[in-house]
């Protein structure tokens, strides 16, 4: 379970996140929905411990992630915004490297690596170097290494961005499976179909603040709009298409 309260983050004169609170429960998929530049990536970076907030509290399964970021990081798996791979390592070596850094070793690591390779349909790729991989194949490797230590909480930054249909389906399948397993999944997106297809709970973010939250149905009801997209637009504060006409 992930809970953040009153997060603040400034970069020089710019305040990227201002008093943002978000909560993601176990066994549910929570979507962080917002336009580009709303502060989604910065928020996630604070949650997964590579940026420290200027103010606010973060709790990962009850662990204070601001005070003990590494204790919190043990409990999370992350697919960051830019996930570079090492072009000279194979897919399997990527998964093993992150596993070893998490302290997973020996037969347990071998079994877990193989399990992920099969789960993500990577059997044909597993022992090839990643230098020539397609975007979809790279996403699979990044996802597999994020899950190697079997984390309770999973954070994904725009996981299906730029993916083809088949890879998108694989990612969705993994996310649903994690929810069924009772995991806590938090992902960011600016794509409405993605959010409506997957999320149990949506947090709408604009200009570093939460402007609305609830289940997709609740959001539609709150704003009085029929589609989630219109609800989103209303929450973010831009005029809808009808109003433009």
């Amino acid at each position, binding site marked *: 379970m992930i809970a953040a309260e009153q997060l603040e983050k400034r970069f020089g004169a710019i305040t990227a996140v201002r008093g943002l609170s978000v909560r993601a429960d176990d066994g549910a998929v929570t979507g962080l929905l917002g336009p580009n530049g709303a502060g989604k990536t910065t928020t996630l970076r604070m949650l997964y411990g590579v940026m420290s907030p200027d103010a606010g509290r973060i709790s990962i399964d009850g662990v204070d992630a601001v005070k003990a970021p590494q204790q919190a990081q043990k409990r999370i798996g992350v697919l960051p915004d830019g*996930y570079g791979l*090492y072009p000279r390592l194979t897919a399997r070596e990527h998964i093993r490297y992150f596993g070893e*850094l998490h302290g997973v070793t020996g037969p347990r690591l071998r079994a877990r690596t193989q399990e992920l390779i099969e789960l993500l349909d990577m059997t044909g790729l597993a022992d090839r170097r990643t230098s020539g991989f397609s975007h979809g194949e790279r996403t699979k490797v990044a996802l597999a290494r994020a899950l190697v230590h079997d984390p309770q909480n999973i954070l994904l930054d725009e996981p299906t961005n730029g993916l083809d249909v088949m890879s998108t389906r694989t990612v969705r399948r993994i996310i649903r499976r994690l929810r069924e397993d009772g995991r806590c999944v938090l992902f960011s997106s600016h794509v409405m179909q993605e959010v409506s297809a997957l999320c149990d709970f949506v947090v709408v973010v604009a200009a570093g603040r939460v402007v609305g939250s609830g289940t997709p149905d609740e959001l539609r009801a709150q704003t009085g709009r029929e589609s989630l997209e219109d609800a989103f637009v209303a929450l973010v504060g831009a005029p809808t298409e009808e109003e433009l006409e």
Partner: protein
Amino acid sequence: MRPFLRQTLVVVRKELKDSSRDRRAIFAMIFGILIGPAVIAFMVDRLIDRERQAEQVRLPVVGAEHAPAFVDWLRAQDGVEVVAAPADPNRAVRDGSEDVVLVIADDFADRFRRVRAASVDVVSDRSREASRPKVTRVKELLTRYSSEIGALRLVARGVSPEVASTLKVNEIDVSTAQERAATILNFLGLFMLVSSLLGGMQLATDSTAGERERSSLEPLLVNPVPRAALVAGKWLAAAIASMVAVVFTMTFCILLLKRVLAPDIGIRVSIGPPQMVNMLIAALSICPLAAAVQACMGIYSRSFKEAQSYMGILTTIPVMAIAVVSSLYPLSSQPWMYAVPMLSQYMLVKSVIGGATPSVTAFVITTTVSLALTALLLVLMTRLFRSERIIFGR
């Protein structure tokens, strides 16, 4: 095993594996290892060549017909071959087709008969280092002929030849082939230092600036690993690569000198296992520091390219500084030199090659300075690795 150490070693293993598949890293390492033996082989080859040249003189003589007895005497000397002279001796020497030409004056026979100094011109180009031994040999021959004939003339007049010699100059050349070889051996220290810089360079750059440039740094930092362990792992991997390069450089250079070249120039390379151990202790102490400086620059650089240009400067400056300092202080080793990294390692290796055993204090100062600076840089790197400005670019 403590988690910190275990995680450091995981990073070391990954970086070494990654780098061993990096063509640029392998190329830089092989270049660093082979440049030394290649240059040494070349220098020894020149040395042998020059000695042979002085012994075997091919001497063009202009106007041989004016002094047949003199030319016959020249022919009778060991290793001298008198040949026909080129049409324009001055030009032939200037354009390098001849090293030295002897010109016998037209009035040689006439003056010789009248017991006057007969003139011969030795045409040579003094700016040409390579022809010097040959020119010296020819001049020696002329002096010898001159004094032999002079002595005969005095004897013929009933005067002891000793009357005419105020000084009896005996030239004793103490430079042996062994010593000339020692100047070549001195380069060994320089080559070991160069390969310590080249060995870990690509790994240090690729695992820091490269890691950020291909945006694999952020996912790496998501793992529950202290930044200090990541820094330590990357630094240690580069230091290991650097040490491997130094060991190979030394081994190859010494094998080359002992097995292949020493028999050719008839010298003994008196470097046994104890000397090799001393040289390794001296030279390897630079590796941790070289790797730390390189990794630190890699972390600090905005891009891989920027890091590479720093590496170029880093490799050039110490080598040039050593060249300057060793020409300013050709023989002496000043105490302060042992507090200057690179220079201290160079001095130590040099004195071991020269047959001395440097004092334990010199070793201790050298190693302590390098390790202290390394520790300082590791702390700085960990700080940099914690800075969001550095991690996410500026």
